[in-house]
C-alpha cells in the first residue's frame, strides 16, 4: 500500500516537477512567475490533438509539431507582450501573464469548446508493470522516464552548452551579461521557448490521464507553481525536488487520511513551509538590504 502510494505519488510528482521546472526557468531570467504556463501547455496539447486526430498525422509528427508550436508560442508571448512593458514591476508582470492565461484559455475554448476529448497516446494507461508488491502503468513509467531524461538534458544544457551558460549569466546579472556580449533579449526568447516546450511535454503526458478540455492544466499549473515555491523559485534542482515531494505527500495524505482534502493539504503545507522558510526549502534566502 505504502509503496503503491509512493510510486503513483512519484509519477504525479514528476509532472509537477516538469511544470515547476518550466516556471523556474522563466522566473530566473524574466523574474516573473508565469501564470500563463498552464494554458500555453494546454494549447500545445490541443495542437497535438488536432494534428493527430483531425489531420491524421502520425504520432511522432504531431507531437513534435506541437512541441515546435509550443516553442514559437513562448517566443511570441515574450516578444509581443512581455518585452513591451516599460519599467515593469513584479505586479504588472504577473498581471501580463494572467492576461495571457485568459487569452489562451479563451482561444482554446472558442476553438474546441468545452467537450472532453481523449488524446490517444501510444503508451497505455491500463497495462501495468509489477514493481515488487506495487504496480505502475506503462504511461506513468513513461512519464517518469521522460521527466528524468528531460532533467538530465537540462542539466547538461546548463552545464556544457554555450547558450546554457549564457542563460545562467543572464539570470545572475543581465547588465553584466550584456556587457560581456550576450544578447540578453535573444536569451530571454530562448528561455521562453524552452520553458514553453517543457510545459507542453507535461501537458501531453497529462492529457491521457486526465481528459483533454480547456481546464486541463488549471489545477496542475497551480500544483506545479506550488511545488516550485516549495522547493524555491530560484533553484532548478529544488523546484524539481519540490514537485516530487508535493506529489508524494499529496498521494500519501490522499491514501491514508482523506482523499477529499488532498488538494488543500498541498497548499496548507506550502503556506506552513513558507512561514518558516520564506524562499522555499532549498533556496538560499536573501535578505534585502536598504
Amino acid at each position, binding site marked *: 500500500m505504502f509503496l503503491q502510494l509512493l510510486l503513483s505519488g512519484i509519477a504525479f510528482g514528476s509532472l509537477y516537477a516538469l511544470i515547476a521546472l518550466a516556471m523556474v526557468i522563466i*522566473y530566473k531570467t524574466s523574474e516573473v*512567475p508565469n501564470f500563463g504556463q498552464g494554458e500555453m501547455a494546454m494549447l500545445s496539447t490541443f495542437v497535438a490533438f488536432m494534428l493527430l486526430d483531425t489531420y491524421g498525422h502520425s504520432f511522432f509528427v504531431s507531437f513534435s509539431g506541437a512541441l515546435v508550436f509550443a516553442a514559437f508560442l513562448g517566443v511570441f508571448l515574450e516578444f509581443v*507582450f512581455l518585452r*513591451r*512593458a*516599460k519599467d*515593469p514591476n*513584479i*505586479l*504588472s508582470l*504577473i*498581471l*501580463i501573464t*494572467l*492576461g*495571457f*492565461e*485568459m*487569452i*489562451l*484559455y*479563451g*482561444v482554446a*475554448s*472558442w*476553438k*474546441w*469548446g*468545452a467537450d472532453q476529448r481523449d488524446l490517444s497516446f501510444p503508451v497505455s494507461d491500463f497495462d501495468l508493470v509489477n514493481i515488487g508488491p506495487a504496480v505502475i502503468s506503462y504511461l506513468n513509467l513513461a512519464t517518469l522516464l521522460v521527466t528524468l531524461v528531460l532533467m538530465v538534458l537540462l542539466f547538461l544544457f546548463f552545464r556544457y552548452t554555450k547558450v546554457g551558460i549564457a542563460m545562467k549569466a543572464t539570470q545572475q546579472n543581465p547588465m553584466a551579461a550584456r556587457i560581456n556580449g550576450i544578447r540578453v533579449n535573444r536569451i530571454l526568447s530562448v528561455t521562453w521557448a524552452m520553458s514553453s516546450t517543457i510545459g507542453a511535454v507535461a501537458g501531453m503526458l497529462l492529457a491521457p490521464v486526465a481528459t483533454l478540455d480547456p481546464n486541463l492544466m*488549471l489545477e496542475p499549473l*497551480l500544483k506545479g*507553481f*506550488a511545488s516550485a*515555491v516549495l522547493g524555491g*523559485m530560484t533553484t532548478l534542482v529544488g523546484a524539481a525536488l519540490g514537485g516530487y515531494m508535493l506529489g508524494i505527500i499529496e498521494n500519501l495524505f490522499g491514501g491514508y487520511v482523506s482523499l*477529499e*482534502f488532498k*488538494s*488543500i493539504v*498541498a*497548499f*496548507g503545507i*506550502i*503556506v506552513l513551509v*513558507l*512561514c518558516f522558510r*520564506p*524562499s*522555499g526549502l532549498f533556496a538560499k534566502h536573501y535578505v*534585502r538590504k*536598504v
Partner: protein
Amino acid sequence: MDMKRDYYEDIQLLDSKVLWFWFLMLIAALATFPFIAPTYYVYMANYMAINVIVTIGLNILVGYTGQISLGHAGFFAIGAYGTVMLMNLLHFPFLLALVAAALIAAFFGFILGLPALRLEGPYLAIATLGFGMAITQVIGRWELFGGRMGVEAPALSFFGIPVTTDLGRYFITATIAFVMVLGARNLMKTRVGRAFIAIRDSDIAAETMGVNLVYYKTLAFAVSAFYTGIAGGLFAFLLGFISPSTFNFILSIYFLAFVIVGGLGSIFGSVMGGIVMTWLLLELDKIQELPFIGGMLISFSENFMTVAGLPNISSIIFGLIIVLLVIFEPLGLYGFWIRTKIYWKTWPF
C-alpha cells in the same frame, strides 16, 4: 485649485461649494435612477455596486499597501456563505449577519496577513492563492454548507420590510456601496491610510519611521477582507443562490483585473474599474447579438472555431484589456481621467 494649505483642507470630503452641488446631484441621480431604468439595468447596477466594493477592498491591499492577493474569491465566499448561514441557521437579521460575516472574513484576512509578513512577490501570490482554493474546497465538501450543490439565499427583509425585487435590493446595495466608498476614501486620508501607502513605497523605510509593520500589514489584509466580505454577502442575495464553483480562481483574477483597469492606488479609479468591467462582463456574454460584428463573429466561428465556444471571446477580450492596459497605461482608467482633466484645464494651449 489643488493646493492644500493645511491638514484640515486635505481631509475635507469636498473642497468647494460647486463640488458639493455636484455631489448632491450625484446622490439624487443615484436615487432616481432605478425608477427610470428598466429592471435589467437595475440588476446590472446592483452587480456594479458589489464589484465596486470588492475592487476598493482589493485596491486597499494591492494598490495602497502593495501586497498581491490571488485569493480574494475566498473572502468573497466567506462573506456570501457567512451571511446566508448566519441568517439560515442562527436567524440573524440581514444587516447584522452581513456585518458579522464580513468580520469573519476580516478575521481570516488577519490570519492570512500573518504569513504575508514574511512573504513577497510570487511567494505571497501562491500563499494567497492556496488560501482562496482551500476556502472554496472546504466549503464545497462541507455538508452543512450545502456541499457542491450550493445553498439558496433566504428571503431578504430589511427592518421588517420584505425586499424581493431588484429595485429594493438596489437601495440596500447602492447605499452600502456608497458608504463603503466614502469610508475607504476617508480611511486613506487618516494615519492608517498613510501608513499603508508608506508600506507600499518602502516597507523598510516605513518601519524606520515608526510604522508598526506587523500591525498595519495585517490590518490591511483585514480591512480588504472586510470589504470583500460585505460584497460577498450582497452578492449572495443578488444571485439568490450560491455554490462553491462560483468562487473559483478565475474570479480572483477578475477582481485583480478590475483593480488594474480602474487604476492602482485610487478610490475613484476603483469605482470606474468596477463599473466599466462589470458592464463589459455582462455585455460581452451577448456579443453575437451585436448588429454587425456579431454576424461576422458567428460566421467566423462556423468556419474556423465552434459556435458553442463563442461566449469565451469575453475571456480573450478581458485578457487583452489587462495586458494592453498594463503595457500602455499602468495607471488604468484613472490615468485616462487625469490626462483628460489636465488636457481640458489648459485646453487651447
